């Protein structure tokens, strides 16, 4: 019922449908859309960049939905979702829908329900979706399970973050943004990244952008569309498959009893896998 209201364009209906899916109701859609994943270390300006991107799409008359992910506390289960602080546009435009999502006990930077939440948005006419990841942790690459285009955000003065990220996310990244281009050192940071990338085989565009002044946003919007037109890579398909596999496991009806048996050494890991596949 919520979904019917949401399909008719009700924001409240959409929000309620998203809640149902977030709480575990599976959803998928045949509707197409373009999903952009924004990732990068804390403090590089992801939220501000998402805000500027959303404004740019809205100015072109395009509807855009934002899912901003923040971590849940592993102790209390609660979460402080503060991305709205830096997203003024979300409060201004009818063309912008913004929703904060807590990771709720999942270790990844992108909880597996996000894929289904994106499906709800597409189904309800929000074809352009921006996902902002948590920004830390080893599982940033989970964004590949949902995003068609992955933008890695870097900033001057943050150290050579790319070195540590090379092995994980870099194989999946489509565009690298050097944010805060209005600050000193942005040119050097961009040059460092370009030289580090030149060792690899993949040709990743590096764009300088300032979320503060708005410089470079138009070029970034263009670059995102160009990348999206070129299709989804094999490595991304692999991530999608892995993510769905993981989800299948965590939603398995016998997961609890299988874990019990593992704990009491009644079965081996191999036997547990067979049970999960059954």
């Amino acid at each position: 019922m919520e979904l019917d209201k949401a399909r008719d364009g009700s924001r409240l209906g959409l929000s309620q449908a998203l809640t149902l899916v977030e709480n575990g109701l599976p959803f998928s859609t045949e509707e197409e859309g373009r999903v952009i994943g924004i990732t990068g270390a804390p403090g590089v300006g992801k939220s501000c960049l998402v805000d500027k991107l959303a404004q740019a799409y809205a100015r072109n008359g395009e509807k855009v939905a934002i899912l901003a992910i923040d971590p849940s506390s592993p102790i209390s289960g609660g979460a402080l979702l503060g991305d709205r602080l830096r997203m003024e546009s979300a409060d201004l435009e009818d063309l912008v829908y913004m929703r904060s999502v807590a990771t709720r006990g999942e270790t990844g930077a992108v909880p597996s329900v996000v894929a289904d939440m994106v499906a709800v948005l597409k189904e309800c006419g929000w074809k352009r979706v921006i996902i902002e990841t948590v920004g830390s942790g080893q599982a940033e690459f989970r964004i590949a399970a949902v995003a068609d285009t992955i933008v890695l955000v870097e900033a001057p003065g943050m150290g050579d973050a790319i070195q540590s990220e090379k092995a994980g996310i870099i194989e999946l990244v489509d565009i690298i943004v050097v944010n805060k281009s209005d600050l000193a050192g942005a040119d050097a940071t961009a040059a460092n990244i370009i030289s580090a990338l030149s060792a690899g085989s993949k040709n990743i565009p590096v764009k300088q952008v300032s979320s503060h002044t708005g410089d470079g946003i138009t070029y970034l919007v263009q670059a995102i569309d160009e990348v999206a037109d070129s299709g989804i890579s094999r490595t991304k398909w692999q991530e999608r498959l892995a993510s769905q596999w993981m989800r299948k496991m965590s939603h398995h009806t016998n997961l609890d009893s299988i874990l019990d048996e593992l704990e009491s050494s009644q079965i081996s890991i191999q036997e547990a896998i067979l049970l999960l596949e059954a």
Partner: protein
Amino acid sequence: MWLLCGDIMATPLRIVIAKPGLDGHDRGAKIVARALRDAGHEVIYTGLRRTPEQIVRTVIDEDAQFLGLSSLSGAHAHLFPRVCKLLQEADVGHIIVFGGGIIPAADRPELFEAGIKAIFGPGTSSTQINDFITTAAARNDAGCGAESDWHWGD
């Protein structure tokens, strides 16, 4: 970890903490936001200087069950009832609204009348706020649009 998942995913309440109007004193709002997070809720903090219209949109987009308004500038008498009225007009009178900040006792009856269900001043413990949240969540007449004169405390 996966075992925990089920418990956590049960139903964390979603609570928006908002600062309407022009005052920039956000320490109280941030402390309340943190206390609610530590009690296991998902708290969405809006940041400073939001209009009643922006706050209502945020509450709807986030599908929140609770809205906490903080004001220390004396504008509560105008802003709090305005937010309640807009929520009712937007068909989300089920949302439970509470307020905090510097709210003189003489102003409170009017705010309760407008649909605010609790007002917390300086010195409030986080236990009191959490007790209110638990109590209000269990009632079916605590929404800002409910035909009921129930409110927290006296």
